[in-house]
């Protein structure tokens, strides 16, 4: 997710130095990798995956209650009440992930002594900027064979879209979710019919989120042929320098020019860690695809 290089630099400078020393002395031949994501961001993303899939599965047992799968899953979760507890527990987890990230941003602001405006609109910020318009146009031209692949910077526009979709989703699904969680309290302010409306919004927005993540986001990050079958960078945080050079040429160029590239070079994870990451990735992908299959089945073949 969003993270400033300068923080990365400060934070992991020592580690990098140590790793470099170890590398120089012991495994000189090992290739160093480029680190894109901090440990906190990776942990938050894993928590996000776990909570998102759990919320999707438990929530859809109600949305698609007319399918046999919903009945099966609901019982697997220990009944509708138990599924409800699981749903609300992971809702809290997801909101906590969101708040932790906001807190992390706040810490970064303090560290870099920037104003919010300065932070949000900085060069490496994940906020949309003018360059994204150029990238979108460039990308469309590339798609249509009218130009070369754009020189993507640190964050591509689709990554930015995914990032802000979470903000939107947390707000929309979270607020309607609270209404459904505390209907008696909520209706002391809101009219009774708002519960009906909240149900529709919560459910359809969740459908949009799951549908989007498990198809578009999966394709953008894992399934597009150059990354197929999956890109584990979000879990490992590391990517090979060669791949990075091709993938994000603009950022690479900048780092080389500024001479800061060295700061992001880290030693790769041992094979066992990579294997564990891949197992987790496969599980997440399978669950995601299963949910898509279930959605398609429920909405097209079993709809009543």
């Amino acid at each position, binding site marked *: 997710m969003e993270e400033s290089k300068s923080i990365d630099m400060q934070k992991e400078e020592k580690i990098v130095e140590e790793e470099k020393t170890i590398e120089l002395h012991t495994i000189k031949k090992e290739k160093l990798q480029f680190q894109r994501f901090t440990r906190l961001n990776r942990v938050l993303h894993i928590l996000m995956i776990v909570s998102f899939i759990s919320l999707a599965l438990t929530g859809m047992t109600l949305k698609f209650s007319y399918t046999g799968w919903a009945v099966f899953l609901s019982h697997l979760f220990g009944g509708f009440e138990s599924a409800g507890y699981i749903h609300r527990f992971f809702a809290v987890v997801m909101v906590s992930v969101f708040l932790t990230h906001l807190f992390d941003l706040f810490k970064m602001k303090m560290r870099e002594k920037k104003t919010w405006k300065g932070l949000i609109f900085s060069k490496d910020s994940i906020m949309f900027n003018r360059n994204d318009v150029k990238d979108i146009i460039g990308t469309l031209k590339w798609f249509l064979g009218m130009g070369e692949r754009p020189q993507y910077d640190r964050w591509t526009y689709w990554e930015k879209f995914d990032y802000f979709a979470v903000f939107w989703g947390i707000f929309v699904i979270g607020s309607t979710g609270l209404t459904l969680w505390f209907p008696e309290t909520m209706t002391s302010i809101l009219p009774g019919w708002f519960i009906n409306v909240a149900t529709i919004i919560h459910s*359809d927005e969740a459908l949009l989120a799951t549908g*989007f993540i498990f198809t*578009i986001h999966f394709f953008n990050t894992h399934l*597009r042929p150059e990354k197929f079958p999956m890109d584990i960078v979000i879990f490992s945080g590391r990517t090979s320098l060669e791949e990075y050079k091709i993938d994000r040429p603009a950022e690479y160029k900048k780092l080389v020019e500024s001479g800061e590239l060295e700061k992001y070079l880290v030693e790769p994870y041992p094979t066992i860690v990579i294997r564990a990451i891949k197992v987790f990735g496969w599980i997440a992908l399978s669950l995601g695809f299963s949910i898509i299959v279930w959605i398609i089945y429920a909405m097209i073949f079993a709809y009543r």
Partner: protein
Amino acid sequence: MNYRCCYKIIRKTIFSSFPKLLLFIFLILNGNSAVQAQSNDDCLMCHSDNTLTGKKNGKTISVFVNSKELKTSVHSDVQCVDCHVDLAGSDFPHKKNVAPAQCGSCHGNSQTDYSEGIHGKRIAKGDPLAPRCQTCHGSHDIKNVKDPQSAVAPIKIPFLCGSCHREGAPVQVQRKIPENHILENYSESLHGVALLQKGLAVAPNCASCHSPHKILPPTDAQSTIARQNIAKTCTKCHAEIEIVHRKIIQGKLWEKTPHVLPVCIDCHPPHKIQKVLYEQSVANQDCLNCHGRTNLKSADGRSMFVDVVRLQNSIHSQVSCSQCHNTVNPSLLRPCTGITSKVDCSICHAQEGEQYSESIHGQLFAKKDSNAPTCVECHGSHYVLANTNPVSPTFHTNIPTLCAKCHRDGEPAAVRYTGTEHDIIHNYVESIHGKGLLKSGLTVTATCTDCHTAHRELPHSDPTSSVNRNNIASTCGRCHYGIEKQLENSVHSPLITKTDKKLPVCNDCHTAHKISRTDAAGFRLEIMQICGNCHQKYAESYFDTYHGQVSRLGYAKTAKCWDCHGAHDILPVENPASHLSFQNKVQTCKKCHEGATRQFAGYFTHATHHEPVKYPIMFWTFWGMTGLLVGTFFIAGVHTLLWLPRSIQYRKELKKKLSNEDEDLE
């Protein structure tokens, strides 16, 4: 004359009694001195005058004596003073207050009997209605009892007694006489007809049973008609009756007074004795002579053995064989050859018999259908037990097993049945009634016969059937009375809602045989389907809500139709008494949602986004969200599809580049 008279008296008295003889000897010995006997002619000198009158108790009465009658009477040879003993030897004209004639001076036994009898006792008490000797026998004109002219000739007795004991006579009205219409009943009875119509002088008249002189009420132990003496009295004529009369008639007396043996009049009411009332019969012992043998078989091989021990343990222990097998003919050499038909239980069980003949079982039987059950199929034959006996097949808890003999799937009744109810017995056993009856052992739980009746089972299509649509509520209401009343006042009642559509009755929701606990998950989950049979739109929209979604997942906890609408007391929302009226709605929500408020109750429990007019907010929210969804997927989808071919190409380039760089590095 005097001596001749004496001789006659001697001859008569010798045949009467010894004390009288002594008296007479005494009279003769004293005859010449004190007593001078008068001749009848002396008396008749005056008393043959038919205008002669005398006074008695202040009344003027005729004292005329018809000498002609006297001479033809049984007392023609008796001197006046033999009876009017107080006048013997008195001079003419004799004293005014003459004592009544003393019949007892000759008829001592009769006199004693009379005095001990009710008539004599009443006289002694001065009852003016009580009869004296002459009331019945006459006075100077007494004829021999064998003379048809006698006042006490058998054929005249009923009328003689009837003169006081007929309906409306002072005795019958003013004295306590337990019987009514004595004379009429007697003259119509077997005895009366024989005597009065057939002229059989030996037929019993009043005196035959009541005795001529010692007439006593039946409450007197000495009475000939006292309970303990009746048999003796009757057997004076019906001497052999006890031998030919070993039958028990109708078994009724034992029901009334179980330990008292019947006497003749229990069956043959006094004065009304009729022959035609009773079937000829034979005694159980006569039947058991053959049927008590275990190896007795009919021509077609059926066992004809009757286990007398089991028979005596049956409810019919006091019923004789011939009461059921009533065509036995005791006048035949083998009385049972008279039995040509099966036992007709309705001889005694008339009401049940009538109900049976109206039932489908009876209708099939009338059509000679081989599957039709008769009484014995359910009740058994000789060893019938009361339905209160737990061993009886008709005991409450045994009825499902009994009916299952034919109605279990695969059995004759189930095979020929074409309706919608299947697996009836299994379903019943698993139902709340079946579990209550068979698992909890509650004998008050409804069993087959409680709904279908015991003897008048009819298909539901029959308008008079207990399970006909129109009668179901009252059938169930026999136990569930309160529910029936609630339903009667609800929107589902034909009394409240006038409609051409079918209004639901008990079994539409609860089913006929699968009736389950309404608080059990099974029923709670079925009810939406059941209500939905009629209220389809509302059932569908219910499933669009959280309540419905959870229900559809198979959980009973969330609100079901009747949690909000009520079960049997459903009323239109406009009715203030309705669970969902403005006044009650919040309270209804509070049953589950403790914190419910008026605003909370504004939740649309049947809302759907398919109705733009009724629920515009939901309709537009849904389509707004759908628009967002479709729009997002369209843009992202196009982006992805365009990317795909380019990405494949890029993958190849990338591989080349990476390998090139590897080479460069090396």
